């Protein structure tokens, strides 16, 4: 049996029933990492020894009955903007190349308490700024479905690692689509929860009012189980919300009836690839067949989302990233004369081009004399976008849309036209501006074999509705694995291959 083909929850069951040991699971992942990393480069940091040591600890706790959750013993990967005590946390930036935090992010801590074994830290766009994982200081991550293409971003490393079966699940962060878009490109399932659901404590901030941590998983069941663990009120995060409805796995029922699904017409106009459009609309059709009510509607203000987003996110980023100055931690330029020279050189040498572009953009829109025209206007736009969604959710339970207008672009084709890259965020950023939850699940492939994802947005605190819709849709399909992942199955012999396919569910 190829262990790696199992979902996180399936593996958790086998570990619980002693069919598989935690060590076996970790070793399988480590072998896969060794085998595919040269091609994919999902990880910035891995630590086999630490993982194996942790595996022993967790195994003991499982054996003693102290740990019995669905994720106990399941190996996971963490996006490298989440602080992990004792593990380098770089944000894929030179400026944090050697930064080892003294504390662990709340979300990661909760996973560890649930018995997760950390395998490593995943690659990302530098400080989560980018849509391709190409702005990483440590080199690009490649799409496991076709290594000539990007995995999307900024959580490209997390999504690629899950798709390439280098881990069973991962955590990502989503400021403008950074979980949903790479999930779409890599054929995995990702959730951006309602703002305030997962504590941001220990998440190295990009756009604080938009950032939200979420799961990247092999299927909807895994995603719900992970979210259930990481969602929590945390008094260390003032924007964290006390919720009593975080039993997300209870929403996993294949039932389309009663769901009212809206399709925003404007999301399917200019700029969307035909194959993406067809595939996403087909998913809507499937849900209709499952009993859901589906109709098109007009969602207003779509064209204002991108400018509003880039103003707000960049403004917050320009301030959030000010602390990286060479004084306290991280990179400091070797030669300087005086304080200001040190600041200037450290930051000029430590940050990449895209990060500098956004710091400059953000500093500009906050400058005196421009604040009202840009930042304040963007905040008002944000409020209006929220209103437009509030209006839509009066009628619909779920808004169904693509996660990106295209499938994964070729490596190197995006960064030379940043404006075009920014426009690619059109379907995802509104959810961040309005604080909404969104899920992306695979819904097909284009003619080049690259995955297409369908995005479902819900009203604030209504993750359960989108989970139900996504689960209902998922049940009509067979989970697809990339060739790179399947290649490994042969090493385990064909006899038990069918188990790994997970087709029987």
């Amino acid at each position, binding site marked *: 049996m190829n262990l790696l083909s199992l979902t996180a929850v399936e593996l958790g069951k086998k570990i619980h029933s002693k069919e598989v040991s935690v060590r076996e699971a970790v070793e399988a992942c480590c072998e896969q990492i060794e085998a595919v990393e040269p091609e994919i480069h999902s990880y910035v940091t891995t630590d086999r020894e630490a993982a194996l040591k942790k595996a022993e600890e967790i195994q003991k706790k499982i054996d003693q009955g102290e740990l019995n959750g669905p994720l106990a013993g399941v190996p996971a990967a963490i996006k490298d903007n*989440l*602080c992990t005590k004792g593990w380098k*946390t770089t*944000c894929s930036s030179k400026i*944090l190349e050697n*930064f080892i*935090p*003294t*504390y662990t*992010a709340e979300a990661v801590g909760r996973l560890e308490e649930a018995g997760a074994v950390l395998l490593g830290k995943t690659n990302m766009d530098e400080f989560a700024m980018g849509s391709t994982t190409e702005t990483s200081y440590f080199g690009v991550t490649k799409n496991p479905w076709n290594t000539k293409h990007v995995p999307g971003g900024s959580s490209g490393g997390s999504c690629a690692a899950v798709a390439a079966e280098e881990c069973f699940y991962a955590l990502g962060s989503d400021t403008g689509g950074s979980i949903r878009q790479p999930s779409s490109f890599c054929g995995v399932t990702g959730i951006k929860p309602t703002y305030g659901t997962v504590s*941001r*404590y*220990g*998440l*190295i*901030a990009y*756009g*604080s*009012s938009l950032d939200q941590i979420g799961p990247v998983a092999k299927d909807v069941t895994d995603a719900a189980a992970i979210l259930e663990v990481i969602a929590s009120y945390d*008094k*260390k*995060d*003032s*924007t964290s919300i006390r919720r009593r409805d975080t039993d997300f796995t209870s929403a996993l029922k294949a039932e389309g009836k009663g769901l009212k699904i809206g399709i925003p017409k404007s999301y399917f106009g200019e700029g969307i690839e035909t194959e993406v459009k067809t595939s996403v609309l087909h998913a809507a059709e499937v849900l209709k067949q499952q009993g859901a009510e589906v109709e098109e509607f007009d969602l207003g203000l779509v064209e204002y989302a991108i400018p509003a987003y880039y103003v707000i996110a960049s*403004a*917050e980023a*320009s*301030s959030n990233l*000010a*602390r*990286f*100055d060479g*004084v*306290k*931690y991280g990179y400091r330029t070797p030669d300087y004369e005086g*304080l200001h020279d040190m*600041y200037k050189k450290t930051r000029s040498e430590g940050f990449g081009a895209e990060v500098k572009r956004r710091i400059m953009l953000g*500093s500009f829109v*906050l*400058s*005196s004399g421009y*604040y009202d025209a840009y*930042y304040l206007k963007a*905040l008002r736009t944000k409020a209006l976008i929220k209103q437009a969604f509030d209006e839509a959710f009066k009628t619909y339970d779920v808004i169904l849309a693509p996660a990106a207008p295209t499938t994964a672009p070729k490596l190197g084709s995006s960064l030379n036209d940043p404006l075009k890259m920014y426009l690619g965020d059109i379907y995802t950023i509104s959810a961040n501006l309005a604080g909404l939850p969104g899920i992306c699940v695979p819904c097909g492939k284009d003619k080049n074999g690259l995955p297409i994802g369908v995005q479902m947005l819900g009203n604030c605190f209504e993750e359960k509705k989108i989970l139900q819709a996504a689960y209902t849709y998922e049940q009509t399909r067979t989970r697809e694995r990339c060739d790179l992942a399947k290649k490994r199955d042969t090493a385990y012999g064909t006899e038990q291959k069918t188990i790994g396919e997970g087709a029987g569910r």
Partner: protein
Amino acid sequence: MRKEYETVIGLEVHVELATKTKIFCSCSTEFGGEPNTHTCPVCTGMPGALPVLNKQVVEYAAAVGLATHCTITQVHKFDRKNYFYPDNPQNYQISQLYLPICRDGYVEIELSGENDQKPEGNPGTENTARTENTSGAENNSGAENISGTEIDRAMRKKIGIHEIHMEEDAGKLVHDDWSDCSFVDYNRSGVPLIEIVSEPDMRSAEEVIAYLEKLRMIIQYLGASDCKLNEGSMRADVNISVREVGAEEFGTRTEMKNLNSFKAIARAIEAERERQIDLIEAGEAVIQETRRWDDEKEYSYAMRSKEDAKDYRYFPEPDLVPVVISDEWLQKIKDSLPEFQTEKLSRYLKEYEIPLYDAKIITGHKKLADIFEAASELCKKPKKVSNWLMVETMRLLKEEEMDPEDLTFSPKNLAGLIELTEKGIINSTVAKEVFEKIFHQDVDPEQYVEEHGLKMVTDDGVLLQTIEKILQENPKSVEDYRKGKEKAIGYLVGQTMKAMRGKADPAKVSQILKEKL
């Protein structure tokens, strides 16, 4: 001939709040400590750390606002002020710009009326002008020269408060000249501050000092801060401009920093007033700039002009949610406000029957009032307590150049001392000696008197013997007295007291001597 000028002054006062923990984390605010020991990821600006507001800071800030007649902004927010400096770990300070917690208040000050608005005509008298004003300021804080009637005659003036906002303090840079290197200590980083911004309502150093003393008294009464200028728990930046008397427009202002005492503030105001007038008289323009006062050289120099003024790129702090002070919460804060000076003063007059003058001085400092009330409660002799505070305590404070807030002795020991004198166990000379020990070391008077054998000798036999001896030893004085030189008895009493090592009642000695002679 120089024109007559008026000084226009507004103040920005920073006050460190006396919370146990910092404004956005649970680190201790305690002063001192090894560098970077009162720190955590939040107050050292580690990546991923988030601020959580300390409720006590809101309560103190609102209480100061209520005590200064401000309107409380029941839904207020924090903003980020962005600037790079190594003592500022995040390179932004969390402060309040758009919606500060308190607005539109005032503080009423009292002025003696003498030094108010005295335009200085002759630049040659700069020094005298400064001295006058400084002493004016001293008079207001000191006890000596103000009598009860003067207080009643005092002029009252309202100084407007534009706003009060909450913010975090920065860390401290330590420069090592030997290694040509700077270190940073974040122990102070995140200590809560309120900034009290006045309207430009003050016209003289005297008014500024009166305003600061009133503010300090209010805040000390609230227990919101100890307000020590020399330790930096109260810091004042002074905005000054001058204009011709009668002019309606304000002149160009400068902002003066690094003022560490009331005296420095008074000196800096006078010097800056003169500097600006000299510029105007010479036909030059005053430049809007920030200046740093050097109190030793009695001179200020420009730090930065308006042109290089930083653009702080303020924007709403996304890591904190708006603070909502509910009606109930506000009421609770109102209910918890202590008795302030005015109420205390009238209560003292009624309850303790001490003179207005004494009551005024004692209630002028929370610490004195606290000692007075506690000691009076213990010994039931408020007038005696008041005397000890007004005379000996004031004398020692002045001698030691201390502030009443620095007093460390316990009311219990003062009450004990009063009891010892009342019972005739020690005489007043010994009592003064013991009080000094209480003042400095807070000794237990009974124990101290016992250990040092300072009790009055009540055995008349010993006293009579001593007196006999003194009379024999000083025949000349005896003769002088008998000849009608009344003064001579004083010498004899002194000699007897000396021989008794102070442990006799001088009145009694005098009486016996007279009988003997």
